[in-house]
């Protein structure tokens, strides 16, 4: 009993693992027509997870499993947000998946395993647990991208994702092994201590750091390691892209924080220089390439590359300000990207994928409310107040200017000006153009409610962003050990 209660910080992960296995078995006995039962079970699991995370909340930082696992405010906040995003993804994709015959137990169980991987990533404070979390998430995602077996595009996307993802994991592992060689430990905090006390070989450390940063950049999809992003976004089923584009970014944020800040803070002078290049290139390539796209999902892929560039600016600014700003940025980005992909699933029908820009033509005449929600999401992505996206950009810019690098801030705003053009084009298509088809848009009540919530949340957070900023700043302040 006493041992069991010491596991409290990890109850959520344990519960999820058990539930995922149970659902896997239960699903075998559920007829194909009654997959809603599995769906409900998954949603209940997510509610259970949220309750567990709330009830096991404790102030302070708890380490578990010989420092492999850490539970702090940042991990709690990010996990809660991950549950919410996964739950939203399932609501958005239910009818989309049903229409494509993908509404299966496999999809839902794989989603849960991917979530488990993310949770492990969020709470990992050891190279081993980090890697296990990352691989659990990635493997589930590879399978999910390939779920649509009869689609050549999806298979190609899965293949690319898998090969490049494996390469990235290899790079990351190689870098970690060098850090291990230099410091003699895999524990993130011990690595930090070893570097601080100068017992590690600095050349080996920096060499390892290069590989680690390259691996991270691959996973985040930052230029020049971004090649997989557009193909995967375009090829994979929208529900899976939604997961890749929102929840995994939250986990990636925690991963970056644990690795670069908790572990390698002493090497900041090295990694922040690398991140500047990654960030500026990402903003440039992402924003400029997005203009040329005619496929909406591909455009969002380039937009995500550009957003990751902006996000990295917050990380490289450092300090509570910078990390808080990047956390705020990633949370807002996840919310916007859920809405944008959610919109695709709502406009899609059986045998019709609304993934071209033309699908948005004249949306204001077909459904003014959906068009208005999309308008909010697009202006938010472009960073125009009064939407949440503006404050995300603002807080990152504030952090970067605080470090004295006004020139980077000017580059960032110039690229976001270029970015504004292609978001504006969506608004133009919806409001200024005539619709291509007058097919009525059939919206399920649950997803209709959710998209309204999503769009209005972007507006509400734009009018009242203060509390979320404070939460993010507190989470970072209470969780990261800024040496």
């Amino acid at each position, binding site marked *: 009993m006493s041992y069991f209660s010491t596991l409290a910080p990890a109850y959520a992960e344990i519960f999820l693992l058990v539930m995922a296995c149970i659902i896997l078995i239960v699903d075998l006995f559920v007829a194909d027509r009654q997959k809603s039962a599995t769906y409900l079970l998954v949603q209940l699991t997510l509610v259970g997870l949220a309750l567990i995370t709330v009830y096991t909340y404790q102030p302070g930082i708890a380490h578990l499993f010989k420092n492999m696992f850490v539970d702090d405010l940042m991990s709690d906040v990010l996990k809660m947000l991950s549950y919410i995003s996964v739950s939203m993804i399932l609501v958005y994709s239910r009818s989309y998946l049903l229409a494509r015959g993908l509404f299966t137990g496999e999809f839902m169980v794989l989603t849960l395993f991917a979530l488990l991987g993310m949770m492990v990533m969020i709470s990992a404070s050891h190279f081993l647990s980090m890697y296990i979390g990352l691989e659990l998430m990635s493997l589930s995602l590879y399978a999910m991208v390939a779920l649509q077996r009869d689609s050549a595009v999806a298979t190609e996307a899965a293949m690319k994702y898998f090969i490049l993802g494996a390469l990235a994991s290899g790079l990351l592992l190689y870098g970690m092994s060098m850090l291990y060689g230099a410091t003699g430990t895999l524990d993130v905090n011990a690595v930090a201590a070893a570097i601080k006390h100068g017992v590690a070989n600095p050349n080996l450390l920096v060499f390892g750091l290069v590989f680690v940063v390259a691996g991270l950049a691959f996973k985040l999809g930052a230029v020049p390691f971004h090649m997989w992003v557009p193909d995967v976004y375009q090829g994979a089923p929208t529900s899976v892209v939604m997961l890749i584009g929102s929840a995994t970014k939250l986990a990636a944020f925690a991963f970056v924080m644990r690795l670069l800040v908790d572990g390698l803070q002493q090497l900041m002078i090295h990694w922040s220089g690398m991140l500047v290049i990654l960030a500026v290139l990402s903003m440039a390539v992402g924003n400029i390439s997005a203009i040329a796209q005619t496929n909406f999902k591909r455009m969002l892929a380039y937009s995500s590359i550009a957003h990751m560039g902006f996000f990295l600016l917050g990380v490289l600014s450092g300090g509570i300000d910078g990390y808080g700003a990047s956390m705020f940025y990633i949370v807002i980005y996840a919310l916007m990207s859920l809405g944008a992909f959610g919109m695709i699933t709502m406009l899609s029908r059986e045998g019709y994928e609304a993934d071209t820009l033309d699908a948005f033509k004249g949306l204001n005449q077909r459904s003014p409310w959906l068009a208005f929600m999309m308008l909010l999401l697009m202006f938010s992505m472009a960073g125009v107040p009064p939407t949440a996206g503006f404050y995300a950009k603002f807080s990152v*810019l504030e952090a970067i200017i605080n470090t004295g690098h006004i020139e980077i801030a000017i580059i960032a705003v110039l690229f976001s000006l270029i970015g504004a053009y292609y978001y504006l084009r969506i608004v133009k298509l919806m409001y200024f153009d005539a619709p291509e088809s007058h097919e009525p848009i059939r919206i399920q009540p649950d997803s209709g409610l959710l998209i309204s919530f999503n769009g209005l949340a972007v507006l509400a957070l734009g009018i009242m962003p203060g509390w979320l900023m404070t939460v993010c700043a507190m989470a970072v302040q209470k969780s990261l050990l800024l040496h």
Partner: protein
Amino acid sequence: MIFGFPLLSVAIWLPIFFGVLVLATGHDRNAPIARMIALVGAVLGFLVTLPLYTGFDKMISAMQFEEMYVWIPHFNINYHLGIDGISVLFILLNSFFTPLVVLAGWKVIEKRVAQYMAAFLIMSGIVNGVFASLDAMLFYVFWEAMLIPMFLIIGVWGGANRVYAAVKFFLYTLLGSLLMLIAFIYLYRQSGVVLGTGSFSILDYHALPIPRVEQILIFIAFFMAFAVKVPMFPVHTWLPDAHVEAPTGGSVVLAAIMLKVGAYGFLRFSMPIAPDASHELAWVMITLSLIAVVYIGLVALMQSDMKKLVAYSSISHMGFVTLGFFIFNAYGIEGGLLQMISHGFVSGAMFLGIGVMYDRVHSRQIADYGGVAHKMPVFAAFFVLFAMANSGLPGTSGFVGEFLVIMGAVKVNFWYALLAATTLIFGAAYTLWMVKRVFFGAISNEHVAHLSDITLREKIIFSILAVCVLGMGVYPLPFGEMMHASVNNLIVHLGNSKL
């Protein structure tokens, strides 16, 4: 604050609330209801701003009707509102125009009526927010939010080339504002160094010492934002496009209100925050202003499209305003402010007049008209009055501001005044020549022959504007006395170096 009642918040949020209400009527089936709600909202929105005039203390230069609540504690950003003699008249002007715009679009707008009316109401609230904000971030949020309804107004209800105009308008103004945002964040950081805690309060910025080079950079960043909006000479090219393609209401709001926020920005931000840079770069501003007055005046002469002509005339008149500001004396600044108010009335009236003709003939080309006065005598009388005001005839509002600015310019440099005074010739030339070709002479074609005179609704709109134009021209004191204290305070402030 009288009665402790949050007048400014009401002036901002009441139109926005009614805008949402109008939006809720939805489909074009409910267009009559949408129109009624919009009119009620616009009129109420104007009425609630009247106490700002009556309750305003003309003797003091400090901010009045202040409201302050914590908004984003993480960055020390507050919901801080207040007005002084410089901003109060613009809130009134803006709220005054909203009902007129609603009335002007009453019959003409037939598709998506609710969205049209809502866009104008929401915009009206946002613009009041721009003028009333005393917190730089609050100002910035309103400033940028203004773009969204205007983008839709031009893009959805505009003319043939509307998409190009809308996108150009949006991107041009966004570029300027983003650099302003960087300037604000820099000032936040600088205020953290000087005051201990970072601040976004505009009044704190006014007192903040800033080194010379930084002042110049800040001035340039602000210049990018405000000069685009004014618009000043090299960055004015979006305006003729936007004006020509916008629906009548959009043109009116652009000319009467939107152009004013740029000039207001110079007075509220550029000059008091970077006074040394303002003095140092005044020659640039004066040169650009004079180019606008003379060169754009000549460009206006060549236009064959009436809306384009008035658009260029606006740029030329706004050149007068910025000239007045950057000669740094009371005549100049007050003259510039009065010119802004007058230009609001006159250009608004001109665009409404062109809208009246466009609704009937569906052409903006001067060549398509001729002899309109024979068929529309009442309308012609009104239009000629506004045209006279546009060319600065004494006794109309157009004269007051121009006269004061020229007086101020003479005190600084005779040649400035001489060049500025050419506007009285060019202005008269392009305006009256257009009037001659459109209204007088023989009836030129079928369309004109079938014209009918303006309706009661249109007569009401034009009568109100005519009263304003004549009233301000004959007795400008009620406008001028509001701003004396604040303008004098600004001039004293500008005299002190911040280095």
